[in-house]
Structure formats: C-alpha cells, structure tokens
C-alpha cells in the first residue's frame, strides 16, 4: 500500500446533525487505495451514520466527502462507485443465490451469458460451489452462506470501495473467525479498498491495516492496530481495548502522585513528571503487573489480597484487591504460578505504566 499516493476517500470536517442531536461531530480522515480500514466504536458512537454518509444513504450537514478528489456529498448511492454489505445482508428474498449475485450486472445491462460466468466465478471465489448454490433460494441458506452471497454480490458490482456494516455480528464465534480470515484474504487478493465498521475492537485489530476509534461522533484515535495498542491516546481507547487497569491519580509534585483507591490514597511513582494538582489516569496492562518476591524490587509496589484466579489457557488471570472496592487485574504465564497465598505484594516497573487523559 503506497501511502504517499493520493487517498481514495477523504472525509473533511464532516458533521451530521439530526435536529438537536449531533451524531457525527467534525470528523476528518482519509483512506488509502487498497487499504483495509476499520471504524470501531460502541453503539451510539456514530459509526453507522458515518458509514451511511460515505455510501450515500445520508447527506452530511456540513463538511465534504471526496472520492478520488471529487466531492460526492450529493451523489446518489446508485451513482457512486461504492457498495455496502449491510448488517442484515439485505439479500433479495425472492431471488436465488445466482440471481442475487448477478443483480448489479443485470442492472448494468450485461448479457446473460457474461453475467452467469461472472457470478459463477465469484461464487467459487467465496467457496460456494455454484453447482449446488446457484439456483438455491437465499432464504434457505445458512448464516455463513448468506454472508458469502452478500459479499459476492458486492464484488460483482466491482466497486472502488467496499463498505461493511457489522456484517459478522450475528454469527457464532468460530464462523466469525473463519470469515474474518476469508475477508482479509479476499481483500488482499482483489486489492480493493475495504472500509469496515464494527463494535468489536478485536475484530478490527485482526483484519485491519488501520483503525479509527469513534466515541460520541468524534474520532479519538487513528492508527495502525499495533500503534494503538501500544500507545492509546486516552483512557477511553485504553478501556475499549479490553481489560486494563486504570488508576485515578493526582500529581503531588514531579513524578510523585497520589492514587485514589476509594479509601486512603496511596503514594506511587510516575514514569514522567507533571505539574502538581494534575489529575490523570495511569494505565497498567495486566501482563505488566507481577508478584514481588521478598528481596525483589520494582518501581511501585502495593500489598494486595488475591480474590480470585481464572485460567485463560496458557495464562492465568488474577483479580486482586488493594482495598475493598478497588481491584486490579493481573495476568501471568501459567509457569509463573504464584506461590503467594491470599496476601501478596504486587508491583510494576515505571516504564510499563502510561499516563493518559480521560
């Protein structure tokens, strides 16, 4: 993917208001040609509204949408070189699998023979044996099969950008993982730009070249999955990524801060120095916490009580209590099984902690 080339899609200061409610608030980003780009966010974050504007089902209140440099705010969906796979898949219930896939070609007036050949190809690409599936009615297909038909149909349109609105959310975990891999493979092999929307960060991380995290209509962070994971910009992004520990801290001076545990505050050391009185959140990943044996040292230590432990395959997750009401999550490898009893000393190194804003 050539990042220096002109982006295929540009979103410039786009806002969408429904009456008094602002669904999308001054959002700007660009997608490169051939990229797998994902918009992630919880429900109500505006990701679906944004998607619908990109496809043409809604019009931005202000701002510009540019496809290959051309402004497309007012371009109707049937005139755009984009195509969407809906959450409900929106397969045509009165047509067979084959006719569904052929639909965009029939609309364009292509000859029947050509249509059939192309549909045949696409079904094979999606691992659906045309001999069995071509004449099958879509309502008789399973969830996974319908997904593939929807994708085949979208590919038949041969769009410049393919959009996906949480298409896998209704499937069971195993099918979802299989289809995630297939989607990624198809994107690589067809070299098409994919713009994917989901509420599952895990899904986004697995498939995407770049991810944008949305909250309440605003983009919190855009970047490659690894970047975001390593350096989340704020507490929301950090929390969105799963179980992390976020400590409420108030800087007392320099690198010293007070941790508000709900009872009496604990003094801890920060990895960087800030002005006194600054309130922040301190991010510590579960795998960065460890049990301190006698004689060991760490940047910060705190006595804890082990409440519970859960087996996560090769790792074990501990829930520990600092004071009643304040718990932390710790993850260690199974081999390191702590010999600690109920009471233990927990510690972490300064470099493993990150100061974040809310």
């Amino acid at each position: 993917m050539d990042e220096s080339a002109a982006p295929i899609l540009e979103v410039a200061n786009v806002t969408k208001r429904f009456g008094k409610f602002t669904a999308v608030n001054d959002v700007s980003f660009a997608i490169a040609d051939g990229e797998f780009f994902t918009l992630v966010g919880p429900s109500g974050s505006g990701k679906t509204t944004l998607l619908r504007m990109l496809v043409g089902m809604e019009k931005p209140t202000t701002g510009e949408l540019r496809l290959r440099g051309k402004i497309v705010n007012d371009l109707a969906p049937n005139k755009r070189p984009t195509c969407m796979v809906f959450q409900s898949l929106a397969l045509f219930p009165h047509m067979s699998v084959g006719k569904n896939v052929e639909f965009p070609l029939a609309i364009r007036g292509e000859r029947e023979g050509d249509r059939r050949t192309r549909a045949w190809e696409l079904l094979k690409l999606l691992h659906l044996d045309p001999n069995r599936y071509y004449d099958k009615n879509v309502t008789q297909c399973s969830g996974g099969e319908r997904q593939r038909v929807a994708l085949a149909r979208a590919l038949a349109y041969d769009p410049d950008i393919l959009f996906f609105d949480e298409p896998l959310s209704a499937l069971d975990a195993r099918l979802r993982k299989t289809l995630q891999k297939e989607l990624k493979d198809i994107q690589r092999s067809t070299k098409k730009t994919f713009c994917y929307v989901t509420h599952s960060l895990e899904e986004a991380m697995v498939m995407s070249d770049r991810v944008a995290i949305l909250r309440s209509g605003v983009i919190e962070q855009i970047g490659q999955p690894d970047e975001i994971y390593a350096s989340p910009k704020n507490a929301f992004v950090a929390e969105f990524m799963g179980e992390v520990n976020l400590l409420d801290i108030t800087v007392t001076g320099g690198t010293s801060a007070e941790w508000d545990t709900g009872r009496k505050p604990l003094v801890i050391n920060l990895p960087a120095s800030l002005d006194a009185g600054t309130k922040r959140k301190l991010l510590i990943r579960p795998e960065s916490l460890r049990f301190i044996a006698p004689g060991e040292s760490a940047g910060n230590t705190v006595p804890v009580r082990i409440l519970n432990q859960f087996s996560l395959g090769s790792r074990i997750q501990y829930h520990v209590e600092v004071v009643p009401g304040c718990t932390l999550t710790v993850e260690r490898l199974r081999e390191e099984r702590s010999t600690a009893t109920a009471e233990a000393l927990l510690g972490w190194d300064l470099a493993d902690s990150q100061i974040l804003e809310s």
Partner: protein
Amino acid sequence: MIVTRTQKAGFSLYAGLVLLVFYFPVFCIIVASLSKKRFFSFPYASEDMTFKWYADALNSPQVHDFVGVSLRIASVTALASVTIGFFSALAYARYRWRGRQTFQRLVLLPLFFPQSVLGLALLMWFNFLDVTTAWWTAAIAHTVWIAPITTLIISIQAYGLDESLEEAARDMGATRWQILRKITIPLLLPGMISATCFAVLLSWGNFALSLFTTGADSALPEWLYARMTSGYQPMVPAVGVINVGVAILLVIILFAIVRWSTRKSRTSALSH
C-alpha cells in the same frame, strides 16, 4: 430512507390531492344541505343559506323511524357479532386444533363475497322458511358479514395473549369458565371494544344487505337511496351530513379508545 425533499413534497402533494378529491363529495353535500332553495343550484348567495333542512331532518318522524330501525339493527348486530367474534377469535388465534387452518381460510369467505348476492340469497332463504323479513332478519344478514370482521379484530389482540397467564390460573385451580371471565375477557376487552365500534359503524352504513333483508322496515340508507333515485329533495343532504358527522364522531371515539387501551396495556404490563 433515501428520499429527497422534492420527492417527499411530491408525495405529500399527491396525498393531499387524493384526500381533497376524496372529501369533495362531502363538501358538496354540506353545501347542498345549507341551500334554502327547493331545488339545488350552485353557487348560491349567502342569503340563501339556512339550517332549515337540518331542523326538518331532526324533527321528521319519518327520519326518526328509519334512524330507529338502523339503530336497532346496529345494536343487535354488534352484540351478536362481537359475541360470536370473541369465541371464533379464540379458535382462530389462541387454541390449537386440527381444523384451525381451514377455519382461518373460511372465516374470510363472507368478506370476499358480493353483498347484493348475499342479501338476495338471504331473502330467498327467509322466504323459504316462511319468515317475513323485518329489521331483525337484516340484523342476521349484517352479522353474517360482520362476524368475520370482529373475529379478525379480536384475533389481532388474541395473538398477543400470554398463554402462561391462563396456565397459571389453571394451576391454581380455576375452572375454564372462571379463566374466561377473569382473565381472557379482561385481556381481550380493548379488542372487543374496537370490534363493537366497527360492528356498529359497518352495520349503520350498510346498504346492500339491508336493501333485501329489511322487508317492510327500512333502514336509513335505504330511505336515502329511494329519495336519491326518485328526484332531488333538500332534506336528503342534511340527513347525509348528519350521518357523516356521526360517523366521524364515532371514528374519533374509536381512535381515542384505541389510544387509551394501548396505553393501559403498556402500563399494566409494566406493573407486572
């Protein structure tokens, strides 16, 4: 939805046009009912406006008779069709039994049947039974046509009946009759009230069936029909307007009942 503002405006215009044309006859009747002259001609000066015909209509013993007949027919029809409709709605939507699917198809049959032919058939049948047609035979005729409608209306509500309520009562020792009285009927009451309103209104306005089955008695629509085809009479529009006004009033009441009952069922569901 991808509908542009101009498209929406276009559709609104169209809908407005349709409604305008639809209520044009009503406008005409109102206009005619206020004209003082014996023979109608339009336009007329405002000096020629009068409510005289309304007074005549409301005071006319003839009109009273016909209204009375219509009311009698409507009330008996409503009572019969809602009662029958209640039980058949249960059979339609609530109980599982072997003939259910056939029953569901057959319930609809009288609706898809031309009323004039049904009226005629009933006339012959009554004649064969040596029964003189009168207002109550018309009530039977109306019930035959309206019972499917009340069945469907109550069925819509019966589909939402929670079986576990009845089963719980059963579990606590209630007899079927008690369950019917204390659980099923109260739950279906809104549907039954709607059905009653429909039955009254449909019977009130029915012409084709009444024409053949009322015999010596005459319902209001028949009287109107006779007057209309025998030459213009200024009292007819007045009666017509009263008729329409009463219908609109009843529809508003129906609408209010529907709103009240949905709100009631929502709050009672919350309280459970």
